[in-house]
């Protein structure tokens, strides 16, 4: 009996240092941001005055907030399916290529993973430059219309989705590829002997069996889309004419360093929304897989 308690204590002591640091770097700030959201915060003076929901009311009265909320939702609704469809397609293709060739292709498709999103934004800003960039030079060669990409309010948000696709595709592809390669080969072989077509096999075998990975990627990409910042900050900085001002850009450019209370209110709001979305995705869409 005594040893049992000893092992309990040992286990707890192994977790304790991480847990203490976790409290300092995560839990305490998390609670603080909920408190700050209801306060008028003055960082210089170190004072806080409770003002209830005033920060939220102020936030909701700003046009920029609603505008950037719309932009963020638009960004998430379009970029998440785009990234996931490409992930799924590439992972399914890569799973079919066997041996050394498959290995090389997987490694190559994975290369953008090491690039920072900040660098990605800058590189694509160059590639999509309306006059000097590679893509418009190519379009020019074929006498096709040349969009202004990141420089026009009409196309800028779509262009940032393209950057996001480039930088995010490797992550999801790898996770889905891991799931697909985990499917027992006999399942596909048996189905193919029964004359089930490739597309049918994909829909009826692959998709249901990688459900856990799909939901994981979906949740992570949704969170990622809602906090989109780096690649947009370095490519458009939120412009032109505010057309790519996502919530995080709004937070940093307009609220941070001017009103910490309102900034906290915005992050608290985002936290709650993301929590609900993740919870819904995990409970409604997730299936237990057994094969």
């Amino acid at each position, binding site marked *: 009996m005594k040893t049992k308690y000893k092992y*309990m204590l040992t*286990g707890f002591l*192994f*977790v304790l*240092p*991480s847990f203490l*640091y*976790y409290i300092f*770097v*995560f839990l305490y*700030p998390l609670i*603080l*941001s909920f408190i*700050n959201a209801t306060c008028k915060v003055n*960082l210089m003076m*170190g004072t806080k005055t409770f003002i209830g929901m005033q920060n939220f009311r102020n936030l909701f009265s700003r046009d920029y907030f609603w505008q950037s909320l719309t932009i963020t939702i638009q960004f998430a609704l379009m970029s998440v399916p785009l990234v996931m469809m490409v992930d799924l397609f590439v992972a399914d*293709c890569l799973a079919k290529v066997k041996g050394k060739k498959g290995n090389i292709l*997987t*490694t*190559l*498709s*994975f*290369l*953008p*993973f*090491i690039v*920072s*999103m*900040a*660098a990605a934004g*800058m*590189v694509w*800003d*160059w590639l999509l430059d309306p006059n*000097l960039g*590679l893509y418009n030079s*190519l379009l020019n060669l074929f006498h096709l219309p040349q969009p202004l990409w990141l420089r026009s309010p009409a196309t800028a948000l779509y262009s940032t989705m393209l950057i996001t696709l*480039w930088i995010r*595709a490797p*992550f999801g592809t*790898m*996770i889905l*590829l*891991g799931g697909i390669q*985990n499917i027992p080969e006999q399942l596909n072989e048996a189905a193919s002997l029964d004359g089930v077509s490739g*597309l049918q096999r994909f829909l009826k075998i692959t998709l249901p069996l990688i459900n*856990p*990975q799909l939901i994981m990627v979906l949740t992570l990409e949704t*969170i*990622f889309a809602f906090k989109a*910042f*780096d690649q947009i*900050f*370095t490519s458009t900085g939120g412009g032109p004419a505010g057309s790519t001002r996502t919530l995080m850009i709004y937070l940093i450019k307009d609220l*941070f360093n001017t009103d910490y209370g309102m900034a*906290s209110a915005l*992050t608290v709001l*985002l*936290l709650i929304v*993301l929590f609900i979305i993740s919870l819904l995705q995990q409970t409604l869409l997730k299936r237990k897989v057994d094969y």
Partner: protein
Amino acid sequence: MNKRTTIGQTVSRLLLLTFFIFTLVPFIMVFFTSFKTTMEINNMPYRTLWHRIIPDDFTNFQNIRSVFNGSASQLNGVPFYTFIINSLIVTFVSLFPSLILAATSAYGFAKFNFPGKNVIFYMFLGLVMVPMEMISIPLFMTVSKLNLINTYVGIMIPSFISAFGTFLLKESIEPLSDSYIEAGRIDGAGEFQIFRKLIMPMLSGPLVTLIVIKCTWCWNDFFWPLLVVSEESMKTVTLGLSKFSNDLFKEYGQLNAAVLLSLLPLLIVFIISHRQIKVGLMGAGVKG
């Protein structure tokens, strides 16, 4: 039936090829553009497409040199290697505490039972799901109260812990047989000794995976350094890079040279260890 499959296959081959061109072209263009003069980039005199892609002179190191030694106008005399050194320090110094914290907590979660273990574990799960950006404002206020703005410690504070590492290592420790631990105890080894001498050596594979992924994330972090660093000499690589993105008339040659320089260290790491990153991410999905 047969014909349809071939059409389908051709289409999917073409789409896959498009994807690979889309993925790899930026790398090629960064490399090429780093060697181009401003005249070349501005297409003066008018050039054919081929000459707009390939630089005239691969020995033109003007861009790379001016970025590296800080004579590029956007850098205001701060050489780019300052940022690289800062990032190297931040990445390497934060690596060790985060590995130790991840490994000890993973061992505690995987092989012991104590009241509240599951609660603490689910709290850690929150650390993976909740983006760091959402709590960065109060964390920034704490850091500024501690006078750690513009210091290495301030930049490293969120990177000392790795919840992803805890999960990755927990998954690797769980399948290890308890009999190793029992044997260690019978031989009279202390609990920490068992962890260090018996468990740690068996984790070399996942530890390498964790090191590589952690280095990549730490090196590429932009949001947190942006908040806590304002002094030029303390900026990390990503912040140094972003100086080239602010101008209306961009010096694309220098911009690409800076991207190339920021990419090289990770590219070397990637070439050595791409297998480990793949294994880690594929496994993370299957287990999670």
